[in-house]
């Protein structure tokens, strides 16, 4: 069955996953504009885009454990998921800047400096930029596989910062963001020991 899954995955082009992954964006904007996200569509849309970002990062973190522990090889989609998560975080940030804050730059700058959850979110976003920029074959060739993989381990920090951002946006301790954090910690823990034993031979990130 796993072989069949791997054979099927080989046939799916990455661009198809990418295009499919973009579809929720116009759909959510349409829902927001037509009342489907409630009477405060901007906050709702901002939240949806943030959730998609985090979910796509988590999906990307699942790829290596899936291969290692289940033999499912979806490695060719890993960069696609990463670039998709970047698109969503750009939309998330764009909604904050353009719709939520209405381009009040002074207030935004003060928020980035003063409000820890915004600071953390912004750090995570900035860390994602070099990863998105180098998510192409040319960059891997230029940098060399080892250096590229090392750099892209920054996604571990990004995932944790993203979860912290989500937890801190809430006024009280909520279950949902804590579940996201737990899932991310679990996925990172799966990498910790096996990596040392195999001393980097299969260090796919």
């Amino acid at each position, binding site marked *: 069955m796993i072989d069949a899954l791997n054979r099927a995955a080989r046939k799916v082009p990455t661009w198809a996953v990418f295009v499919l992954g973009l579809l929720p964006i116009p759909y959510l904007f349409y829902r927001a504009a037509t009342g489907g996200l*409630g009477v405060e569509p*901007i906050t709702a849309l901002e939240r949806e885009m943030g959730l998609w970002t985090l979910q796509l990062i988590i999906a990307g973190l699942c790829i290596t454990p899936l291969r290692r522990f289940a033999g499912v090889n979806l490695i060719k989609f890993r960069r696609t998921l990463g670039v998709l998560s970047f698109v969503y975080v750009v939309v998330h940030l764009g909604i904050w800047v353009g719709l939520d804050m209405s381009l009040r730059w002074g207030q935004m700058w003060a928020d980035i400096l003063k409000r820890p959850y915004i600071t953390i979110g912004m750090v995570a976003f900035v860390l994602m930029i070099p990863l998105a920029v180098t998510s192409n074959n040319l960059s891997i060739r230029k940098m060399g596989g080892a250096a590229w993989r090392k750099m892209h381990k920054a996604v571990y920090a990004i995932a944790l910062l993203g979860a912290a951002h989500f937890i801190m946006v809430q006024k009280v301790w909520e279950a949902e963001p804590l579940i996201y954090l737990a899932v991310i910690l679990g996925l990172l823990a799966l990498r910790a020991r096996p990596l040392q034993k195999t001393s980097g031979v299969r260090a796919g990130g």
Partner: protein
Amino acid sequence: MAHRWTNTLTRNDITPKALWLNRRAVLGGMAAGGLAGGIAAPAAAQSAPLEPNTLEEIRSYNNFYEFGTGKGDPAENAGAMQTDPWQVTVDGLVDNPGTYALDDLIGDMTIEDRIYRFRCVEAWSMVVPWNGFELGDLLQKLGPQEGAKFIAFETAVIPEVMPGVRRRVLDFPYVEGLRLDEAMHPLTLMATGLYGEPLANQNGAPLRLVVPWKYGFKSIKSIVRITLTDEMPPTTWNRLNAREYGFYSNVNPNVDHPRWSQASERVIGGGLFSSRQDTLMFNGYPEVAPLYEGMDLSVAY
């Protein structure tokens, strides 16, 4: 009473029901059609006439943590709360203490229309056409005693119908309080309805406080206890996080909140392309400023 606050807006200024029922659809259509410019919120809120939010907006976007922390949770869950019969206990430094049936407590109060701005500490706002009576009138009837300096309120706790209480998202019962002179101010309202209809449960039925110059969490909902006291009473959000939520919690664009800048606010109901508007000192009710004369509002936040 001579000091009575007079509304510059009358019942006639309230959006006709047919209109407010349709406004959402109109706005939705405009947003979808990309006619963003037409939905701009009033920038100079103080001089522009207040346009009340629709009943749908007021009833679907709520904070009432007893019923859940999501904005839609109260509308979804609060219907199960039984508000008739309803009892309110009055105690503390008061001449007429007791446990009153709601009608015995407030049946003789004069219900007025009050169109107030409502500003949440989360930096969003609405305009609500309340029906209610002045808290000062009720206090006159209850007779605060000499030593009474503060008034404390408590919200109902009914775990069977309140999922947020079962999950203990806050330290319930929800409690709030005012200084007695704040409570006696003619702007301070006890609301029993809005748009001429009884309060929906998610809006704090059957009896809630409305203090329009303070952040919304001060305006405690579904009140079951009123206590007159000589000490500043504890308040729920202050107990949870004193750095973020003070006892006074006056709307103040100049005092920064650790979590949200309070300089501006998003007006609910403007749709996807509405812009922020500047937040006004005391939420646009400068007549309350004398209450705080001589106080440093960045310390007493």
